[in-house]
């Protein structure tokens, strides 16, 4: 039986269809999860997709954090369920304190949609075990609030524990501290990143297929 990966749809989620497709391409079964439900339907991992949940009202991710399904996600993550937050999903994970730091307005103040080279800084996470250490991958970014910031102590801790998962390798699109594109929690099973690996799974529509390994990683990590 193939692994079942949940994809949460909040009102205003946009890249949920892409996340479903990426899961399918990786050979797993995508399971639609609804923001208003208290149920993760027994999935093996959860993806919080990109978009503008609740219209980014108040602050990106600030309201989604309080949705019923997020209570389940937080509990399950604390019990070891792999969780991936992409873009808005990363913002939600930071707001929910599953990941440290925050995402603020891009340094250039504009929304930026651009293909970016990322370096995979650690393969010791549930979502990056399928990459080579130090591998460079080409993945799109598209966000207005993707500048990763954190207190100096937090940054030092992330670096010391090798919890910076992805770093912008050839130019930083948003002014993120330490060129950080993605981080993980202490359990290394919760990962958040601003770039969109789900847009890099099909040579016809993406700049590469470098994103597929991310969705494959979690299958071996868990199942």
């Amino acid at each position, binding site marked *: 039986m193939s692994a079942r990966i949940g994809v949460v749809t909040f*009102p205003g989620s946009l890249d949920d269809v892409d996340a479903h497709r990426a899961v399918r391409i990786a050979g797993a079964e995508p399971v639609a999860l609804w923001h208003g439900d208290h149920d993760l339907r027994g999935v093996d991992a959860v993806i919080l997709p990109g978009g503008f949940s*609740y*219209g980014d009202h108040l602050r990106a991710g600030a309201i989604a954090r309080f949705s019923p399904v997020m209570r389940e996600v937080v509990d399950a993550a604390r019990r070891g369920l792999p969780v991936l937050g992409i873009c808005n999903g990363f913002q939600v994970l930071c707001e929910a304190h599953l990941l440290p730091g925050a995402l603020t307005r*891009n340094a*250039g103040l504009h929304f*930026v949609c651009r293909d970016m080279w990322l370096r995979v800084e650690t393969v010791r996470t549930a979502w990056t075990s399928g990459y080579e250490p130090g591998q460079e991958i080409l993945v799109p970014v*598209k966000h*207005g609030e993707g500048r990763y910031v954190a207190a100096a102590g937090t940054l030092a801790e992330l670096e010391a524990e090798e919890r910076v998962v992805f770093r912008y390798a050839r130019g930083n699109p948003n002014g993120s501290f330490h060129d950080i594109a993605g981080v993980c929690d202490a359990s290394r099973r919760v990962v958040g990143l601003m770039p969109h690996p789900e847009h890099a*799974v099909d040579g016809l529509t*993406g700049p590469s297929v470098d994103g597929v390994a991310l969705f494959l990683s979690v299958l071996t990590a868990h199942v």
Partner: protein
Amino acid sequence: MSDAAQSDAAQSDAAAVDTVELAGKTPDEHQPYEELGLRPDEYERIHTVLGRRPTAAELAMYSVMWSEHCSYKSSKVHLRQFAGTRTDRLLAGIGANAGVVDVGAGLAVTFKVESHNHPSFVEPYQGAATGVGGIVRDILAMGARPLAVLDPLRFGAADAPDTRRVLSGVVAGIGGYGNCLGLPNIGGEVVFDPSYAGNPLVNALCVGALPADRLQQAAATGPGNLVVLVGAKTGRDGIGGVSVLASATFDTGGGWAGSMAGGPAKRPSVQVGDPFTEKVLIECCLELFARDLVVGVQDLGGAGLTCAISETAAAGRAGMRVSLERVPLREASMEPPQVLVSESQERMLLIVAPPAVDEVLAVCRRWGALATVIGDVTDSGRLVVTWHGETVVDVPPASLADEGPVYERPIRRPADLDALAAAGPGSLPRPATGIELRETLVRMAASPNLCDRSWVTEQYDRYVRGDVVLAWPENAGVLRIDEGTERGVALSVDGNGRYCRLDPYTGTQLALAEACRNVAVTGAVPLAVTNCLNFGSPEDPEVMWQFAEACRGLADGCRELGLPVTGGNVSFYNSTGAVAIHPTPVVGVLGLFDDVTRRTPLGFSEEGDTILLLGVTRDEFGGSEWAWVTHGHLGGRPPQVDLRAERLLAEVLVAGSRDGMVDAAHDLSDGGLAQALVEACLRGGAGARIVLPAGADPFVALFSESAGRAVVAVPRSEELRFTEMCDARGLPMTRIGVVDGDSLDVQDAFSISLAELEQAWNATLPRLFGGGPV
């Protein structure tokens, strides 16, 4: 305000309201019809229709529905020509919210372009944002999922002080709305010309797809069926948008804002958008369509609720009764005329059979979309609106929707046209030496109209939904519309105001030809046409002549190419004082792929490919980018049009792409061959060694803007097959070089490294508008 106070306020409003009964008793009451944009004879006509004076609410409704923007009263007689353009693939055409084309395999595609010019000058961010929102709802109203947008934009001179304000706001608004809606932005134009300084053009095209059997009707049929308003609450924004803003020049605005919005707190006539509400509305409506829960649907856009209820009632040939006080309001003190004409965004009107209404409301609740039953369909043949039980509107719906005034405006060929034609580009000094040609090429590549558009396009999401195969700067936006069959569509929007200024008939056909070429270059078969006709004031006979010529040109062109005009939009009054914009018809063409994986990209990437120039190059510089950039010159004749040759070129490009004979292809247009080569080299990251045809004038070969041409990069292994196909079909073709190295070399003339080209090409917009790459 407490509930009791609110109820008191509502009742006191009701008491002050102008009812049908009161109108009958006070025939001589003075009414501010001129401030609302109506002429005395139009006001008289309302009397004739109703047999009495209109109520304030009725007057408001007629003023918006009979505005130029809604009634097409000046353009109608010319637009009728498009009815002669047809195809058997058309499921819905002109008159529907958007044209719908059957693309096979049970799928249909719908697309339309609209203007949001006036609001975008007054308030660039919201004007442009709600322009996207409006066209998206048109597509949704056909029953389709909106899939992508394209934005043809025109601004004043790039270095004019106000351009930065307008452009920055417009681009941020389009991005802010479209990105949040989850719609990729896959193409468009960014054009600078002083003629648009006080009248920027912000056009928006949306394309959507639907199962062919799920096409929705914008008709209120079935007496007893319920009228449901879904989406945002109604507020005081966008009051009189279609009449004051869109149907008047900027120096002569009407009195809407004063008389309708009331008091010193004058509200702008620009709508305010909330893309989150629209996103929810889209998903909610699509679920309702999929579950077959609605009988009819109409979006609320220009002229708001008035337009939606009168058009659906007229189309259903029935009647309708609306209890206006049920409309959820942002401000309780709004009066019936304001509620009826507010252009608040993110609203849709549904016609629902009574047994389905509970389910409809439940779906709306699940999506968090506000839904309210506001009335019902009747068999009275009248549109009746009540306000707390009193009748404030009682009219035949068709008198609003279909039977507005129609004008045959006087036309006159512009007095300066002969002088303009006589002052051709022939006398302009031309670059002759290799150094001069090189300098010209770099200067052109760095010019605002030809330089890199990343500053704009990087602010738009081009990935969301994962079906974008090509997006600008590619020749056309290309989408996969069906993952199972790999069916796809291509879309391009093109226009050239300078060509149209010199000759609107030819200029419009050139726009049509370019849009077709852009679609064909990617490998798609051109299928259908939409248009956005941006002009000055129709009350100026010279503008009206330009308009008439453009319509004639488009209709003739489409007939010759066998393409239907499926719909479109007219934007008049793009004038400041007596000065009109260049006549700017923007033509959108939809093309179809049976297999979108066969698409041809723009960039040269395969070293060793042979570069072929297809088509015929003539000495044509009238209205050209070269004349404008290097001499600030506009005169002479635009390039000639040969639609038969365009059709042949398109057939060759499509066949080459389908049969895998072409690695890259790019159409030739503004800036000619030189600019096409610059773009193809930079896009693909490979250089080119070019040998211009023997005996050709290098300047003409490089910079002429002759139509009907493209460059293709063909693998060596396919060269013979491809050239034989060109010969067999009679398409003129010249071998002009190979893809090679990291520079653009033109033999015996000059060489320039791609790095230098890229720097020149990239730097312009960030320098002008700030905020370059971080």
